[in-house]
């Protein structure tokens, strides 16, 4: 199994009047062919910036400070706009977070999908591209697709827009797909169908997908691998089973415990208290320390390294240091064990 995408020690910052925003810090990730890696983490922790920096779709104020990006064995770290334009739409495609900002408001949706089809296949005729676009719309579950293909984005419901953006991304048969919260506006029955469609595409075309989502139910359904991100860094990485059944980082514990399933019959949900740190001057030690009930003294002083737990599983927390006190995971046994 080969890695279609390899990110090594990537750091990305924005220059702002207030200072340097360190949005992505020392991130290393490998995305094997035919697998779905789910990227989860606190709002603002750098998930979208990470995807956009691989696609080189960042504003000018952004800079790749260090690290490297390999796509299908080729180092693209220093690729300029011209080289990237060739890769986008063939090698890479991205489903962006805000459908409204991706769709052209003054162009019928069907034409926008047909355009994506033509980027991939220049020789296809206009009528065939349109027919293919309608097929794509049907594939992602838009009813009355032929009629709707001639309509504009504002004629669509939120979920239909989101599915159109997905159709655009899939139309070009990318090898690596970035899907940034592609199902947030869908009802659960359609969501399940779309997720199964993702897995099917995965299996037949061996696409590698980086799937950004907040919905842990979605992660449970689509992901093979999971990366948990906090304040610009990856704090835990493992298979979907590792993360759900044997999570090790206190932030991962906090996320899982915030699910409504952990608060059945209670008045309030378990939000993680406090706020993530500013990325302008991130703290010296573990960025999660001040919100972490299990924090050790060293957490405030020194960034923990990635500790290896198994072949597939690693986490950046000092709790995994052999010298650390033993802490029982609060997740142990699932949401209903402790009551």
């Amino acid at each position, binding site marked *: 199994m080969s890695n279609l995408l390899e990110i090594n020690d990537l750091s990305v910052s924005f220059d702002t009047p207030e200072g340097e925003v360190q949005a992505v810090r020392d991130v290393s990730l490998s995305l094997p062919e035919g697998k779905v890696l789910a990227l989860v983490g606190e709002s603002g922790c750098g998930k979208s910036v990470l995807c956009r920096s691989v696609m080189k779709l960042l504003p000018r104020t952004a800079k790749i400070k260090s690290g490297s990006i390999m796509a299908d064995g080729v180092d693209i770290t220093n690729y300029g706009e011209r080289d990237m334009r060739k890769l986008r739409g063939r090698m890479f495609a991205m489903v962006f977070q805000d*459908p409204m900002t991706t769709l052209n408001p003054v162009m019928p949706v069907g034409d926008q999908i047909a355009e994506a089809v033509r980027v991939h296949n220049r020789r296809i005729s206009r009528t065939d591209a349109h027919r293919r676009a309608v097929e794509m719309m049907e594939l992602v579950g838009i009813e009355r697709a032929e009629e709707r293909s001639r309509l504009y984005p504002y004629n669509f419901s939120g979920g239909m827009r989101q599915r159109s953006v997905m159709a655009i991304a899939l139309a070009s048969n990318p090898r690596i797909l970035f899907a940034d919260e592609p199902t947030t506006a869908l009802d659960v029955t359609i*969501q399940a169908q779309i997720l199964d469609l993702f897995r099917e595409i995965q299996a037949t075309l061996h696409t590698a997908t980086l799937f950004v989502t907040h919905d842990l139910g979605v992660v*449970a359904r689509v992901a093979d691998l999971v990366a948990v991100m906090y304040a610009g860094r990856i704090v835990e990485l493992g298979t979907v089973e590792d993360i759900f059944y044997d999570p090790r980082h206190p932030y991962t514990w906090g996320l899982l415990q915030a699910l409504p399933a952990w608060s059945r019959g209670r008045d*309030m*949900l378990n939000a993680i208290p406090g706020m993530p740190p500013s990325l302008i001057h991130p703290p010296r030690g573990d960025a999660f320390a001040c919100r972490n009930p299990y924090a050790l003294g060293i957490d405030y002083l020194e960034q923990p390294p990635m500790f290896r737990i198994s072949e597939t599983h690693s986490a950046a927390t000092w709790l995994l240091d052999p010298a650390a006190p033993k802490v029982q995971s609060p997740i142990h046994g699932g949401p209903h064990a402790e009551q």
Partner: protein
Amino acid sequence: MLNSDYVRVEHLSHRFHLTRKIAIDALKDVSFAIDRGEILGLVGESGSGKSTVARCVMGILKPTGGRVIYDGIDVNAAKLSRDENVRLQKERQIIFQDSGSALNPRMSVRRILSEPLDIHGLSRDREAREKLLIQNLDFVGLDPGVLESRPGELSGGQRQRVSIARALLMKPKLIVADEPIASLDVSIQAQIVNLFKHLQAEHGFTFLFIAHDLAMVEFLCDRVGVMSKGRLVELAPTRQLYDSPQHPYTKALLAAMPIPDPRRERSREIPVYHAPEYVTRQEWTRVGFDHYVLMER
């Protein structure tokens, strides 16, 4: 179903004309009411008309049939008194679906938040204003540092929270929240849901809460309405609906609720709901205390 006088949605219908020949019936005879201080959830198929209901309740869209009465005021009436207009604007706030991208990209967050206050001449004192802005940002878990940022410099979830803060700043009585938390991580979702509960319990806010996350709806809402293909098909107190759903669509929806547990989630088949091609006469039928279902006759 219409035993409350606070918000009454009466036989609401809406048809979008796309071309001369094609039309979409986005809403078909939808009726329900919201009690003062209640959190009513609205769930359902994508494209079933939830956002259209929200827009009609806010008076942004004039329905082609039926009406919405807010606290005795017909929202779409041709003539309203000045006083009624001011009340409608101040007392109702909407958090739009995908509202992050609706923020003016040229304005700083400070101006975005200040604008509605300026319009209504609220909180003019500078220090008090500053305190109010910071307090509302804190409610939604944002650092005061974002005040000087522009929307483009914020993440998707940060922008969404700016919209929530803007709606709350006006201290409205009714909040129409169209998918307000879908783009937030679970911990911040929990924080916002806790905040909504607090606002309801302590300050008597009323919510129309539109969402796809059925677990959150179950946790937050007092009653839930289910929509499919432009119709409200079931309406019941939350516990009742989740424990004994009656309409086939509600059953399919609840059965598809994702489980955050990979082994269980992957091993289950998700039922697909096919709406009947032709509907015969349908009628609202009471099947339990405060529990109504749209049934074929």
